[in-house]
């Protein structure tokens, strides 16, 4: 059971991923980005433990992703986070087509993002 914890953890955490992730800026990025099936995600939080450079948790324990491609140096950790998500909600998606959550009111026909599971069996996340 989740309850509302002390506030602004949200924002502090966001600054935290920005700082940690910034260390990898310009080091060389992969062509993959993180994506989350928000319906499947139950807020276990293991992803934020394994990949704090890219993932923070909000006030209720649900992940906030750092936008953009996963730095190449972190790809191994990202795969680990994907593979150990207890409900298989975390994915790596091709970055060129990663339009999972555009910032504006999304047109219904914006380019689809192809889900690419990193390792493990292919698994449909729709319904």
């Amino acid at each position: 059971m989740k309850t509302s914890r002390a506030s602004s953890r949200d924002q502090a955490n966001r600054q935290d991923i920005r700082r940690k992730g910034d260390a990898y800026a310009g080091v060389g990025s992969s062509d993959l980005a993180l994506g989350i099936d928000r319906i499947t995600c139950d807020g276990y939080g293991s992803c934020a433990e394994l990949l704090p450079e890219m993932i923070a948790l909000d006030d209720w324990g649900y992940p906030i992703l750092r936008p953009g491609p996963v730095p190449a140096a972190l790809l191994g950790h990202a795969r680990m986070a994907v593979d150990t998500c207890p409900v298989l909600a975390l994915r790596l998606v091709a970055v060129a087509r990663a339009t999972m959550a555009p910032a504006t009111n999304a047109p219904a026909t914006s380019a689809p993002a192809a889900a690419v599971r990193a390792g493990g069996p292919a698994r449909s996340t729709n319904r």
Partner: protein
Amino acid sequence: MTARLLAGPALDAGPEPLAGHVARLGPLPGPAERQGIAPLLESAGLLGRGGAGFPVGRKWSSVASRSGGRAVVLANGAEGEPLSAKDRVLMSTRPHLVLDGAELAAAAVGADQIVIYVGSEHRAARAAIERAMDERMADMRRIATRVPTELVAAPPTYIAGEESAAVHFVNDGDARPVTTPPRPFERGIDGRPTLVQNVESLAHAALIARHGDEWYRGMGRAETPGTALITIGGAPRPGVAEIEIGTTLADVAQIAGAPASLGPVLLGGYFGGWVAGPSAWQTPLDPQELRRAGSAFGCGVVRFLRDDECGVRATALILDFMAGQSAAQCGPCVFGLRAIADATARLAQGTARDDDLRRVGGWSQTLAGRGACRHPDGAVGLLRSALRTFDDDFNSHQRGRGCVAGRRAWAAA
């Protein structure tokens, strides 16, 4: 005010019958011409009227390119937005325009099935559509172009009109959004490519198919041509009106008999945002212009805030509604919207905790893009516009000084 969609018999005369509709507007183009309608809509510059404002012709082309002749058209008349009435007025008075548009869409995208999806609470609209479908079935001249059409009553929830929720409901009886991709245009009803299009957009398409793209561009602005249906509230003459795109809020206030106060207006409904001041009142109501100005035309709601209404209280009621209408599938939406709604309610009632306003401000920045659908994005977009527009009021409420405005309860009309 102008009249294209709403031209013809008086609106209180009820649904226009098929015979009158055809006598007034002429028949639809034949089967051969229907193939070319998507490019025609694109050159007309028609934007979707469900809220997102995506170019209609481009959407039809993208479904056509993958349909293989077995696509489905879903005409979206769920209209779960509490402040909007334009879709139900259109369906209740001009049902054949909507059905014409759906039939054209089916030909253009290569669909062999049409679903007319109408909010179950919109009884007059459902009755009008049903009767219009019967009239068309009985019309032997239409046999060659007839597409099997089904009327589906949408559950009376806000989220039922979201396109993946609409498809989910038709497929499985569950009107909750699903994780995308695949989006409905890739895999929708019965796994087939599905065009989900708002009923007003379809009605415009029915007129453009008859009169052409240049005719359509004869009204509105160069950037976004045409006319649009809007729903006006908070004014002496509320209701649905058709305006030329580019009409200003000041013009709409005049049409509706509202004072030219330059005061707060909720634009675009619960998924839109608050604007106020001279520049907002002079900005053309054009989806593209408004997007640049950081607001939204959305589904065409224009709700004036009356002098004796409090913007903080109005916002609290909207956020409570949005939290209650979450499909309860995604954690950030379930917990985040509830927390925002509760804190805003305390602010509205003058019982705020020490840091409620600060927390609400923080949450307004961290929820967008974190749901399977855009429901949380809409709610926090509205919240951010309220924090901007009612900055002084929110601060005064946080300090427990209550309302600078009146105490009148805020209601949709």
